[in-house]
């Protein structure tokens, strides 16, 4: 449960009345369009200083991840077949929803130790990033596809297709923007995903799940887990029904472990370390094409 | 309903001459039908027409004399508190329940339709299927709903499928024959079109979409393709074959979309229970609720409409 700082200032009227006890928030996971607790029942406490507990965060298990992959796989067919226009509309709706809650998200980042100015900038950038990728949904295909001038009498074209289920390990040092910057391009491109939040800055990830929930995303398209990275890297990288894994931290050893485990089913591994997520230079359609396959089709030209 | 004339000679048509069907085009045409707005008087008229076209159906392993008798009561007394409602066209049951239905419907102008031919799968020797048909007719069925051999059709043995229909038609005697294509198992609209043409040339009085026992059952696209086949057959031969979508039509709004499609594809000659039926059960109450709403201006509750 998260406790918010209550104001110590009060006017003469309220000093005589009982001060209001706020309702603390329970942070759960987001799987298949629902908010369950971890099936393991485990948690870890997010603290400020030595003793003050900000919230109890679900310590997601490999079984939670397994369930999330099932949900993502089930949602994948319909989501990848949905029109690009629809995907763009839904991402834009997420921006609308996040814009409406900008204050809440900034406060949540501040609560977790981010300076206020930086928090507000980060939230604004996250909203604009959603708008940015919403606008790519129906355009990346035009930039990256080709009609190929083969020398036989065939109409030959290459298009991008989503790779499928993408497992994302969000950057540790970013409480919101890093997560949004990796989730948005994956789903703009028709993939479904499971994202593991930063361990030290996990709260906005779950609040963001609420934003997604209110944005017309079908259940299972985006699943959000919290937990200990050291426990979850292995299932994220080794699950045989995951098509790609995205790793956002700079830990070279962890990156190597991921690549070794990913080899079993030839998962695509996308390493995005040392990125300044605040910079507009980091957003690009290549983040979308990273999680796409290319399909070439031949068809005769003749009577 | 005009039964097949005695001069009718069944002949397997050249199925490769049947036009192919573009699925996307069919779905767009259907979407246009669905955007028709049926209101006020035309809505009331259509709802009553739809009601009169229902084959009220129970086809379950757990059917009993009690169940069938009560269903027949519903067929007769659809919603007596609103006078002027038409009765349904028929009650549709298994052969072993035909006599029960006949008894319960005595004195009323409601037909008894019976499924036969190892419904729903059709996986039985032809002799068994013929015997079942004869029994159903002997028990008093006015109409027989048969299933085609989908396996044979998918194997490409059109002659076998054709011959079976011809034989069943003969076994029906004076009873009308509805031929169920089981479109959900045929898979493509091209096959639906070909199977429709085959069945009509074999002597079907009605062609019917489905048994209602598998998904998908009746759909608007499949029905449109069948109506177009009926239209072409009519222009070629002068014979009017009826059509029955069955299964999955439980809402009045959907039933009206079928009627729009029927009206604009085949016209006046088919806007009658003689040539169009809905294979349904809970549709009855939704239609009556809509009629009640049209009459009173107030949205209704299911509690006020009997469920038999």
């Amino acid at each position, binding site marked *: 449960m998260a406790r918010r700082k209550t104001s110590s200032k009060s006017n003469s009227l309220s000093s005589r009345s009982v001060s209001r006890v706020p309702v603390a928030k329970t942070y759960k996971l987001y799987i298949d369009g629902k908010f369950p607790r971890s099936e393991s029942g485990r948690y870890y406490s997010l603290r400020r200083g030595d003793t003050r507990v900000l919230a109890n965060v679900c310590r997601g298990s490999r079984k939670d991840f397994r369930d999330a992959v099932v949900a993502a796989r089930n949602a994948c067919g319909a989501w990848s077949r949905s029109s690009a*226009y629809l995907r763009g509309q839904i991402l834009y709706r997420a921006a609308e929803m996040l814009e409406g809650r900008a204050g809440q998200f900034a406060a949540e980042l501040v609560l977790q130790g981010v300076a206020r100015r930086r928090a507000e900038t980060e939230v604004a950038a996250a909203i604009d990033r959603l708008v940015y990728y919403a*606008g790519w949904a129906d355009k990346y295909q*035009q930039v990256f596809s080709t009609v190929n001038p083969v020398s036989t009498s065939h109409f030959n074209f290459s298009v991008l297709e989503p790779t499928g289920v993408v497992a994302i390990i969000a950057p540790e040092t970013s409480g919101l923007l890093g997560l949004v910057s990796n989730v948005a391009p994956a789903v703009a491109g028709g993939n479904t995903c499971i994202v593991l939040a930063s361990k030290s800055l996990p709260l906005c990830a779950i609040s963001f799940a609420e934003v997604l929930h209110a944005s017309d995303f079908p259940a299972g398209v985006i699943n959000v887990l919290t937990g200990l990275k050291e426990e979850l890297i292995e299932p994220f990288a080794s699950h045989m029904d995951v098509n790609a894994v995205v790793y956002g931290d700079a830990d070279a050893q962890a990156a190597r472990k991921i690549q070794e485990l990913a080899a079993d089913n030839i998962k695509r591994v996308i390493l995005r370390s040392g990125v300044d997520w605040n910079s507009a230079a980091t957003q690009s359609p290549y983040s979308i094409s990273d999680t796409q396959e290319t399909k070439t089709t031949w068809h005769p030209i003749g009577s | 309903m005009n039964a097949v004339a005695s001069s009718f000679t069944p002949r397997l048509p050249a199925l490769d001459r049947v036009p192919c069907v573009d699925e996307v085009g069919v779905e*767009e045409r259907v979407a246009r039908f669905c955007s028709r707005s049926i209101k006020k008087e*035309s809505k009331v008229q*259509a709802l009553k027409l739809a009601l009169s076209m229902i084959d009220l159906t129970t086809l379950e392993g757990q059917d009993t004399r009690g169940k069938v008798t009560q269903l027949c009561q519903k067929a007769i007394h659809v919603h007596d508190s609103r006078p002027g409602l038409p009765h349904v066209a028929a009650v549709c049951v298994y052969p072993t329940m035909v006599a029960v239905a006949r008894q319960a419907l005595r004195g009323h102008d409601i037909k008894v339709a019976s499924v036969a031919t190892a419904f729903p799968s059709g996986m039985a020797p032809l002799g068994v299927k013929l015997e079942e048909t004869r029994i159903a007719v002997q028990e008093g069925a006015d109409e027989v709903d048969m299933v085609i051999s989908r396996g044979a059709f998918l194997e490409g043995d059109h002659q076998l499928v054709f011959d079976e229909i011809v034989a069943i038609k003969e076994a029906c005697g004076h009873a009308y024959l509805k031929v169920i294509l089981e479109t959900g198992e045929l898979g493509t609209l091209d096959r639906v079109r070909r199977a429709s043409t085959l069945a009509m040339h074999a002597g079907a009085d009605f062609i019917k979409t489905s048994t209602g026992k598998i998904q998908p059952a009746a759909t608007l696209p499949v029905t449109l393709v069948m109506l177009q086949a009926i239209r072409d057959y009519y222009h070629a031969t002068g014979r009017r074959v009826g059509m029955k979508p069955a299964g999955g039509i439980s809402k009045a709004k959907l039933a009206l979309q079928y009627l729009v499609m029927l009206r604009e594809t085949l016209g006046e000659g088919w*806007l009658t229970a003689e040539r169009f039926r809905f294979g349904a059960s809970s549709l009855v109450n939704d239609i009556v609720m809509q009629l009640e709403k049209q009459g009173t201006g107030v949205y209704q509750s299911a509690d006020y409409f009997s469920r038999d």
Partner: protein
Amino acid sequence: MASPESKLQFDTDWKYSAAPESTDHVRIDRQYELFIGGQFVAPRARQYFETINPANEKVLARVARADRTDVDRAVAAARRAYERSWSKLKPAARGKYLYRIARMLQERAREFAAIESLDGGKPIRESRDIDVPLAAAHFFYYAGWADKLEYAFPGRRASPLGVAGQIIPWNFPLLMAAWKIAPALACGNTAVLKPAETTPLTALKLAELMRDVDLPAGVVNIVTGAGDTGAALVEHADVDKIAFTGSTEVGRQILRRLAGTGKHYTLELGGKAANIVFADAAIDQAVEGIVNGIFFNQGHVCCAGSRLLVQESVADEVIAKLKERMETLIVGDPLDKNTDIGAINSAAQLEKIEQYLRIGQAEGGEMYQSSCSLPATGYWCRPTLFSGMAQSNRVVQEEIFGPVLAIQTFRSFEEALDKANNTPYGLSGGVWTDKGAKIFKMTRALRAGVIWANTFNKFDPSAPFGGYKESGMGREGGLHGLGAYVELR
């Protein structure tokens, strides 16, 4: 083959009751001014004209007539906005304004659809289901390009042209406004738009909407008027680019006026598309495609499939089915939700169409019209076929812009292709066959900018649209549509 005895009876006992679209939530002012510099301002000479509802000839509103000085004010406002505000904004911010326009158009969709039908005569079902959603989608699509132009032109930096002068026709008033404004603004330009004389209302409502989303003043300006208003815009020295959609004849005049000026231009002109049906087509769906191709929007479509080329072995069957299908087309009040074919846009256009009906008959064509009834007042034309036509007939060569289809037969692929290409026009074409290879062979050889295979009249903001030859030059929609509004270095 259908015999007279086997004719189907579509005039049934069960008829559709009137299903009028409600208009009590729709607001049309009695009088509209010009929209210049973010405000509605009176025209200098205080001249107004009336816009009527072609379904009943009743006046809907008085609309300002812009003269040369008004056009000058509008261009000046656009120039000021370009230099002082619009070009100073970050591209992503320009995109956000376009997103706002798209979303608000979705919110006000029903009102816009009703007004479009009232002002222009097209059925409410079309304005509601096609025109308005596509217009919103166009804004949404181009909003996304605003901050992504660096990816659209390999090896080149794109910068805006400046002020765009845009002249649009009366057949898709709101949609054409969207097709013009969205890409222009996305690329950083500002605009002066002149709607058609008979259909100004949705452009004016769009002006209100743009003011309501706080689009910076002067970024879009609307100058209503007739041909001379358009001419003033074309000839204005401070306009950097002209975009015109309309007839080929006016397109020629514009090109002559632009000669030597150095202005950029794109033109989307007339067409006389061939809809080619092969014997191996899915015949029933092809018939539907023919109907969609020529009767949709009363045939007031530049890319209409106004010529049917049908393979001779299936010609009788296709024509019989076509005639049967035409019987269920409802011609009537555009505001009735069941209407398929609405009112002809104006008395002048109806006269043009009727002239062609006379010409076609005089040329020996066999004319067939559906038996539908027509309302007593307003401008109406029944869906019409001319069969037994040839390339040398005027109804085959000339654009009629009405619900009139000219039918010719062909025997071979080469003959169909030759007849299809044997025209100064080159906007669109249709090919109906179940054989994929034949589709690609046809699409490779047809000299037209848009080819529909086993479908017709499909539009999407991401799909480029435009013509070859006298049907114009330049493309609207898609990545290619950006090219019209940028300078590449």
